[in-house]
């Protein structure tokens, strides 16, 4: 028995180390090679206003798209978790489509809706709301690709809450909305937070859908692409490293903060 367990642990460890090394080497090599080749360029890039601006646009647009996903996606996730209705399977599949389709395809689809002659873009253009080459265009592109990450996470969170808890709250005098606010949402908070983090992260990393609808203002991935195309690896690598370091820092902080919610762990 002891021998069997050890073999399994050893095998699992080997596979785990291989995958960790794959990630470490890919990310680490980028960072280390920049430090070795030209640490000064890295330092200069960290204070480059166009780089800082592009990072800010990436982070803030993704924040806005996550906020929209939260507002509209939370009710949908709740329905998917709790209700059975005609077309439910179709809607679940539809939500997963942005994960599967190439993001350039997503970009083309978004232009046809939000572009100058688009279904939604055209009437909104007339009242001064523009998507093409504008911040709102970045937001809709990021929203499109990040929706599955938010909704699927949050739906699982709601599914993990026993409906009888909600039933009890209703018998104790709470309305449907009050039950959702005081029982369901607090108990699903970690999944809502995790879904929001994943949605935000996915939005920041988006390139293909954004570049087709909004080249300017530039998000960080588009800036990296432009610098690479115009000046090569030497010009684009420092920006990539800065983006990685900032992302890692923010992720570590968010994961640390979300650990505090273990107080609300379910029975």
């Amino acid at each position: 028995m002891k021998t069997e367990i050890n073999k399994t642990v050893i095998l699992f460890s080997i596979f785990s180390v291989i995958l960790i090394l794959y990630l470490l080497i890919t990310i680490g090599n980028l960072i280390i090679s920049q430090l070795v080749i030209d640490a000064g360029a890295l330092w200069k890039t960290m204070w480059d206003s166009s780089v800082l601006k592009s990072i800010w646009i990436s982070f803030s647009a993704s924040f806005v798209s996550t906020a929209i996903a939260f507002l509209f996606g939370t009710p949908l996730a709740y329905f998917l978790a709790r209700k059975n209705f005609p077309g439910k399977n179709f809607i679940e599949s539809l939500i997963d489509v942005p994960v599967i389709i190439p993001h350039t395809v997503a970009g083309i689809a978004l232009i046809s809706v939000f572009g100058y002659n688009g279904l939604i873009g055209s009437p909104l253009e007339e009242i001064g709301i523009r998507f093409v080459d504008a911040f709102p265009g970045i937001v809709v592109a990021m929203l499109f690709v990040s929706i599955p990450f938010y909704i699927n996470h949050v739906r699982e969170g709601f599914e993990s809450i026993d409906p009888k808890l909600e039933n009890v709250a209703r018998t104790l005098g709470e309305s449907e909305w009050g039950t959702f606010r005081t029982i369901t949402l607090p108990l699903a908070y970690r999944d809502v937070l995790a879904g929001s983090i994943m949605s935000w992260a996915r939005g920041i990393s988006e390139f293909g859908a954004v570049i087709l609808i909004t080249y300017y203002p530039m998000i960080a991935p588009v800036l990296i692409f432009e610098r690479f195309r115009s000046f090569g690896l030497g010009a684009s690598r420092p920006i990539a490293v800065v983006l990685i370091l900032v992302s890692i820092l923010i992720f570590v902080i968010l994961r640390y903060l979300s650990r505090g919610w273990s107080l609300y762990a379910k029975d």
Partner: protein
Amino acid sequence: MLKIKDLSADLGEFSMENINLEVENGQYFVILGPTGAGKTVLLEVIAGIYSADSGEIVLNDQNITNKPPKDRPISMVYQDYMLFPHLTVEDNIKFGLDSEGYSNEEIEKRTKEAVELLEIQDILHRYPRTLSGGERQRATLARGLVMDPDVFLLDEPVSALDVPTQEKIIDELKKIYRETEITIIHVTHSREKAVRLGERIAIMKEGEIKQTGNSSKVFREPNSEFVANFVGAENIFNATSKLNNGTAKVKLKDEIEIEALSNREGKVKACIRPEEIMVSKTPIDSSGRNMLEGEIIEISERENTMQLKVDTGIELVVTITKKSYADMNLKVGEKIHLAFKATAVHLI
């Protein structure tokens, strides 16, 4: 009074049909039935968690059939407690009072009363995951009681607990009932709990009520084989009955005939409760009209009693106290005498 008239609901996996019940104010009413009978669904429809497809629920002359749960003066306690895990015991208890907008003074007063009744002062600041089963159940009962409901619905409140804790909670339930005179509808699959707690019981099977009545009457006079089986009348036999001078001569087998106090005739099922049969090593001199002899073929121990299977030509199950068993020093293979009254034989 709670009146349920022709209540039906189809929830896919579970359904119930044409439920009719009346529960007087201040009564302890038990709904007894096997797992899957629809007992929990019935409670949930009464509480308003699910809507009925048809029928009526009238509570104290008010039709509450279409009212949402929050507008029904009914509290419900689930088998698995369902304490809100992100709230302390105290916050759990106060939850409903907060939702209903009671004043702080009233909240404190009611909470204090419930906490004292259930003796849970020491656990108020703890979270549910740190509590034992008994503590969770007491906290859940307190949460329901503070609402001062007209009806308190209990869904298998002790079945998830170990036996000693079950006994404590049953005592708590009796105490709650005595001190608050609240109307309780308690659902269980345990006939022992039903007998101990229920003034009136209903037997439920596959979404239908099969029999309702006083506990002792239902247990002694089941109206069907299913009810007889479920209430523990383990001796159920196909028989033929013939009336003779006010009693029924019941033929169980060619050579075995017993007497019953019944006016049923023809093909019947004869039920005799195991605890109604007296046992002796020598012929019994008693008022029991029915005397049989047989051999003990099996002895099994129950929690508080011993159960004997006796072959008298038909197999009879007999329940005696452990003391009687020890005093008589009964063994498998031993020949014994059995006696039971005509009133102990119930014909369906």
